[in-house]
């Protein structure tokens, strides 16, 4: 059996580990545009902040490929998949045959159309290690940083550069920050917090035109800047899949085994859509745990094992300037809300038809995984002491039988 994996990020690593849990011997070939050690992209903001280092940020050991018996083509690009002959063609025309192929091509930053943007030299995206390293070089204490996008990437970037520069301004078209993961009350808390830390937030506005020194906003406001970071979102890299005739929507469509519409081609990670069990629809879940779990599932199935990944959902855990927040699932349904007086701790649990569907917790995130479990395993809330668990996640809210089975090992 010959396995070929396009990509070298988390879904690819999950795929390798999945394959090797079933098939220790067959050849695995990894082809990646990025020629670097194995790293996890969410760590780049921590690298700039110096909370991690190039040494520490390795997602797997340097001899990982060797130990997993993988052949690598790093710094190479696949330009075509010939699914009839089952070969991939590289940018140097080299052909590599496969029996099972994994597409883990990820996503790329979306660059919006802005008047003058093509002439801006000091502009950056914030996704890869290279992005982080080139941005880091430019950071000095007299620089003003302008970030377009108040989502996860934009705000993690703001946090990372804050102490190294003169000012940070974040502009977003949306009326509130982190619109995809927080509700309005949550936003208020986090917005207040990051503004107190010195971030200049400009919401409900966008950049109309930009030159090397100034950005003119739609509102007419003018912002002087030195470094421009574009963080408005990502687009799935689906070109190869589309040209091969694989079914795609906003990203590549797969089944619960990680298989695409072609029986020998699998896909995982940010280039794919996943079924969200909390909203009953299919969407891009560009999240690290999802990439690993789907990649691993696909790997196991590629190698002839049998694994299903059927409990994907949105999940985010992040800190911003020392304030921690965790969110999961979707927010449609009835809510239990607990907010403390100074509005630094916030909890909202969302439930519908006796199932927990989602939650937002800011501040005290301890043991919140117990809530995640309720969502993931679709546990009927009538089977547990929901009143008790609303207040604090705890196993005492479950039945004695459950604790005996899990903690006590009773079968």
């Amino acid at each position, binding site marked *: 059996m010959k396995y070929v994996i396009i990509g070298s990020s988390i879904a690819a690593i*999950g795929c390798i580990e999945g394959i090797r849990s079933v098939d220790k011997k067959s050849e695995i070939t990894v082809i990646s545009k990025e020629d670097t050690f194995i790293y*996890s992209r969410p760590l780049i903001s921590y690298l700039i902040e110096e909370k991690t280092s190039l040494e520490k940020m390795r997602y797997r050991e340097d001899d990982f490929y060797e130990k997993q018996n993988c052949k690598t083509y790093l710094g190479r690009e696949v330009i075509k998949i010939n699914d009839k002959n089952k070969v991939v063609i590289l940018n140097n025309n080299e052909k590599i045959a496969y029996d099972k192929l994994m597409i883990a091509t990820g996503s790329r930053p979306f660059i919006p159309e802005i008047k003058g943007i093509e002439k801006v030299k000091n502009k950056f995206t914030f996704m890869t290690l290279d992005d982080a390293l080139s941005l880091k070089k430019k950071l000095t204490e007299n620089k003003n940083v302008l970030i377009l996008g108040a989502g996860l990437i934009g705000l993690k970037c703001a946090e990372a550069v804050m102490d190294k520069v003169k000012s940070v301004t974040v502009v977003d078209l949306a009326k509130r920050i982190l619109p995809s993961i927080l509700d309005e009350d949550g936003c208020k808390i986090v917005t207040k917090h990051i503004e107190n830390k010195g971030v200049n937030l400009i919401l409900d506005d966008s950049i109309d035109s930009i030159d090397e020194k100034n950005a003119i906003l739609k509102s007419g406001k003018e912002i002087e800047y030195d470094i421009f970071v574009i963080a408005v979102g990502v687009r799935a890299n689906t070109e190869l899949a589309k040209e091969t005739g694989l079914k795609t929507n906003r990203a590549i469509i797969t089944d619960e085994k990680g298989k695409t519409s072609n029986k020998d081609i699998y896909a995982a990670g940010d280039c794919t859509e996943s079924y969200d069990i909390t909203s009953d629809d299919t969407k891009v879940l560009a999240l690290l745990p999802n990439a690993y779990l789907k990649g691993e599932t696909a790997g196991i199935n590629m190698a002839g094992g049998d694994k299903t990944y059927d409990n994907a959902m949105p999940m985010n*855990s992040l800190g911003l300037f020392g304030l921690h927040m965790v969110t999961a699932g979707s927010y449609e349904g009835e809510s239990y809300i607990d907010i403390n007086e100074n509005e630094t701790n916030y909890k909202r649990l969302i439930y519908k038809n006796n199932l927990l569907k989602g939650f937002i917790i800011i501040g005290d*995130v301890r043991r919140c995984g117990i809530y995640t479990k309720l969502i993931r395993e679709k546990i009927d809330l009538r089977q547990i002491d929901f009143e008790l668990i609303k207040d604090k996640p705890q*196993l005492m809210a479950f039945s004695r039988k459950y604790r005996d089975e899990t903690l006590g090992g009773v079968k």
Partner: protein
Amino acid sequence: MKRIYVNEKWCLGCHLCEYYCAYANSNESDMVKALKNIKIRPKIKIEELNGVTSAVSCRHCNEPYCVKGCISGALSINEGVINIDKNKCIGCFTCVLSCPYGAIEPDEDGVVDKCELCMKNSFGSPQCVKGCPNNAIVYEERG
């Protein structure tokens, strides 16, 4: 592999497991120095409700969501034991969000901490088990 099992029926709720855990992971040879006037942060914790008590620590799951979702590679499985490399952890708490037992917690340094079955401290076997006066906590191979 051998795991820690808690027989809730026998748990007295005495919290000794927590103290033995904290001592074992304190790097102190003297128990008094390790515990006296110190806010302990044990990796096993007693839950209590209306007189019912039980001890909760990492189950070392076969399919650990914490490891698979770890964004830094700080959590890993070594011969079944789930280890945390605190040096690599950047404190994103994705594992806290993932653990179905609430058995991984942020520590005082902003990274996470968890039970490693005392494999990495000087004792080499779970001290909560040793400290349990009623044999409610056992360390056994149960297939």
